[in-house]
């Protein structure tokens, strides 16, 4: 679910860069307030690598197979570090594989980083008391927010002379087609966090 190059007007792409820069500045401010942020870089990089690699592997979600977004899981395990991790992942995908796009990098950053932060917030607020519910909502909620942001940007960015009703219909189909992905990511985050809570609690971000 990457916005490709050339779909939205340049003004929107530049606004996306500005929004991503703002998110990045906020995230760096929060990260620098942590006790030893440099010591966390290898951990964040290794987890980013796993998320990047896992998003390249297709997972069967009937009736088809999908590539997971994992924004929710990034939020839960990386916290504020999810913002730089998302931007690095998107940049590498754009320049190495042609996924997403270099002009759409800012907008894609917003589409993925905001849901990751939402998942982080959900996990912090709900996950402590009801971990399974928090995990499912973090995984599914991130996909749903990403879909909403993606659909809004595409609707606002497509040429005005196109049939608005047809655009809305196409986006509705697109969003409905991704509902199984939202459920699947909820189930995956729930199961995965159960394992991590038992085996490796340090992987859950605190702060």
């Amino acid at each position, binding site marked *: 679910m990457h916005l490709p190059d*050339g779909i939205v007007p340049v003004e929107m792409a530049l606004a996306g860069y500005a929004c991503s820069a703002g998110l990045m500045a906020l995230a760096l401010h929060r990260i620098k307030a942590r006790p030893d942020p440099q010591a966390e870089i290898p951990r964040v990089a290794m987890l980013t690598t796993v998320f990047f690699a896992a998003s390249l592997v297709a997972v069967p979600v009937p009736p088809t197979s999908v590539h997971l977004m994992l924004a929710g899981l990034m939020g839960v395990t990386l916290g504020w570090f999810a913002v*730089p991790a998302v931007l690095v992942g998107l*940049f590498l995908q754009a320049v190495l594989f042609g996924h997403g*796009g270099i002009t759409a990098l800012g907008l894609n950053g917003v589409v993925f980083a905001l849901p990751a932060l939402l998942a982080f917030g959900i996990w912090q607020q709900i996950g402590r008391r009801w971990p399974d519910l928090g995990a499912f909502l973090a995984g599914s909620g991130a996909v749903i927010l990403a879909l909403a942001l993606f659909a809004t940007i595409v609707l606002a960015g497509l040429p005005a002379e196109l*049939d608005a009703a047809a655009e809305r219909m196409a986006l509705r189909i697109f969003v409905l087609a991704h509902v199984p992905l939202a459920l699947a990511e909820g189930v*995956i985050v729930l199961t995965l966090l159960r394992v991590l809570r038992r085996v490796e609690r340090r992987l859950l971000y605190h702060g």
Partner: protein
Amino acid sequence: MAERGPGPTARLVIALVLAFGIASVQGLAVLPYVFVLAIGLVLASGQWRMVLRRMRGPALLALGLCVVLPLGSGTTVLAELGPFRLRLEGLEAAALIAGRLLSIVAVTLALLAALPPFQLVAGLRSLRLPALLADLALLTLRYLDEVTAELRRAHLARQIRGGHRGWRALPDHATLLATGLIRAQARSERVWAAMRLRGYGAGLAMPLARLRARDWIGMSVALIAALGVIWLDRVL
């Protein structure tokens, strides 16, 4: 090409300038010039096979747009076949979006995809990117192949062992991912210990040396080309 052409910092700037120049195109008349520019860069990079291989995904997306938009959008009907109507506005929009998309991806891949990871990250550092982001990018690139291979092996092993299918297989995938994350945590502790032993302080990737004459020439030519595309788009 990396030895002969502009350095990594200049390549990043050139890619951004050209990409935004192409993205600002609003009319179809200028697209042939944009294609010439993109094809020229791909050929000059000497990496056209790699660029074509990596453009499969974007090409499929462009093809999808060229099928969906002309049939689903617009008011002026050009042709009719049974329930399908080919519409002018949708066709024009599809050609414009697909043209911009493929050109930008080709330019980006031709300029950046062949750069060694360390040079790419050093180029980012020279653009004043925070050290945290640059180090994150470098370490991610360093371990990407290894981790991808591990995950693929784990998925293959799971398939060979049999197990659940469909929705019931999701927890198995989650467990595989959890294993990957736990290994990553262990690996990160070793990497951090090694980084401290080597005196890690100001970032893994140092900014590159100052820009050379050919870098400035490359960036100037790219700026002129991007402004030329925008100007042609206005006048044609």
